[in-house]
């Protein structure tokens, strides 16, 4: 097991469960548009792979997500009604967030089976490398989206991070990750 990745605590999972898809999808759409606009390196590194449809199956969430980088599209979908996709990535929320924030190495997560890939493996590699170079930070992106409410959002995210053990902000390259 690389590190001891937290499994989403029941309460937080429960809190997400009743979320209706429509408002969630509005937040996801805004977030993805912002990330792609602010980090042009993502699309540049993805190249032709930006047009792939990535099904992101977060095993401890009630929904799956469909990512289409070329159109900056990210939508939540019901698990029993999977949309067509070119590649499927399966793992826990903690594993995805750890990879996104550079807290864990994608290869190490894969070797340990915390992440699994089916379909277009090179598209996943491109996405992983593109996100790694973009040095994404979910808490900053959410704070920026919240505009005037950025500071309180940052505080809420930091608190959620402490409680859940999830990596919700970017790990600096010099932090000890062991």
């Amino acid at each position: 097991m690389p590190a001891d990745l937290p499994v989403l605590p029941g309460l937080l999972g429960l809190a997400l469960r009743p979320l209706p898809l429509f408002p969630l999808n509005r937040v996801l759409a805004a977030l993805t548009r912002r990330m792609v606009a602010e980090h042009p390196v993502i699309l540049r590194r993805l190249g032709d792979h930006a047009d792939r449809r990535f099904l992101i199956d977060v095993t401890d969430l009630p929904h799956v997500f469909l990512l289409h980088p070329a159109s900056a599209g990210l939508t939540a979908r019901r698990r029993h009604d999977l949309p067509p996709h070119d590649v499927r990535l399966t793992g826990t929320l903690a594993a995805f967030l750890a990879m996104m924030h550079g807290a864990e190495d994608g290869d190490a997560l894969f070797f340990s089976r915390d992440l699994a890939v089916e379909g277009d493996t090179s598209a996943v590699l491109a996405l992983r490398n593109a996100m790694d170079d973009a040095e994404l930070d979910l808490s900053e992106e959410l704070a920026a989206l919240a505009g005037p409410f950025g500071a309180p959002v940052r505080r809420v995210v930091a608190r959620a991070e402490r409680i859940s053990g999830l990596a919700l902000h970017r790990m600096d390259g010099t932090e000890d990750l062991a």
Partner: protein
Amino acid sequence: MMELVCPAGTPAALRAAVEAGAHAVYCGFADETNARNFPGLNFTREDMAEAVAFAHRRGAKVLVAINTFPRAGAEPLWHRALADAEQAGADAVILADIGLLAHAAEHHPGLRRHLSVQAAAANPDAINLYAEAFGVRRVVLPRVLTVAEIAAINREIDVETEVFVFGGLCVMAEGRCSLSSYATGQSPNMNGVCSPASHVAYSDDGRDLTARLGGFTIHRTPKGAPAPYPTLCKGCFTSADGKGAAQTGHIFEDPVSLDATDLIPQLARAGVRALKIEGRQRSRAYVAQVVRAFRAAVEAQAAGQPLPRSALARLTEGQAATTGAYAKTWR
């Protein structure tokens, strides 16, 4: 102190490596001129110039790997990479091909030349040939040698040696392996990829995870077991002996990666100048962690102190490590 040469597949990884204590970082352009031509990886010309400036501000060097073998009829692409590396301010280029070395020696005499591991210079005769013919200043030794052989080589040559100490492990003589080419049509020498992701297919039947490369089954792992990337030479195969018995297993190499941390003092005594970490395809998190551990190790070595114990195992492939050929267990 032995020089620590660290990998960077992206500018973010390069910054992470420098901040974690790399003396030198090696990287390549985003095309077939370098042997880690993976999707989403590597440097544009602008990335490279910025990376060199960043590294130089912090006292680190940048070595540009142009270490595939130029395609017949397309040599200008590789020649341009050489010129652009020099233009970007690279401290050295890492080359493997004879024709490209000859071109570099003639047209870029001021650009320091290192011999890539892909040239597989495995004895003093080869190294002296490259030194005399092309003015190569440092050679990256293939991973088929023992520490004793490395020491013997250093006694017969005048150029610096660099050896791999951590990361992926080739069991074949590098730059002389067409296994990937045979299975996928894509080769390290020509395309800069080995066992490329574009030819990998995983299938999970709920019980086992099967990994295929170019249609060939490379391994099948039961649920929960570590799942190494399907690199051809680390696969699980079966071989019959012709007398009715068959063996199934990792016929070429187990899915392990190299960790020669414990051999650093011996490598220093063998005259090795620089230690190289493999992994331009790994994340900046990985790079930072490995570089930090090895910087501490080379500092301890230089100060004559015992090496610090590091916890790098979980970053390695299949989560098991080997000292490869260095410790002579292959003999």
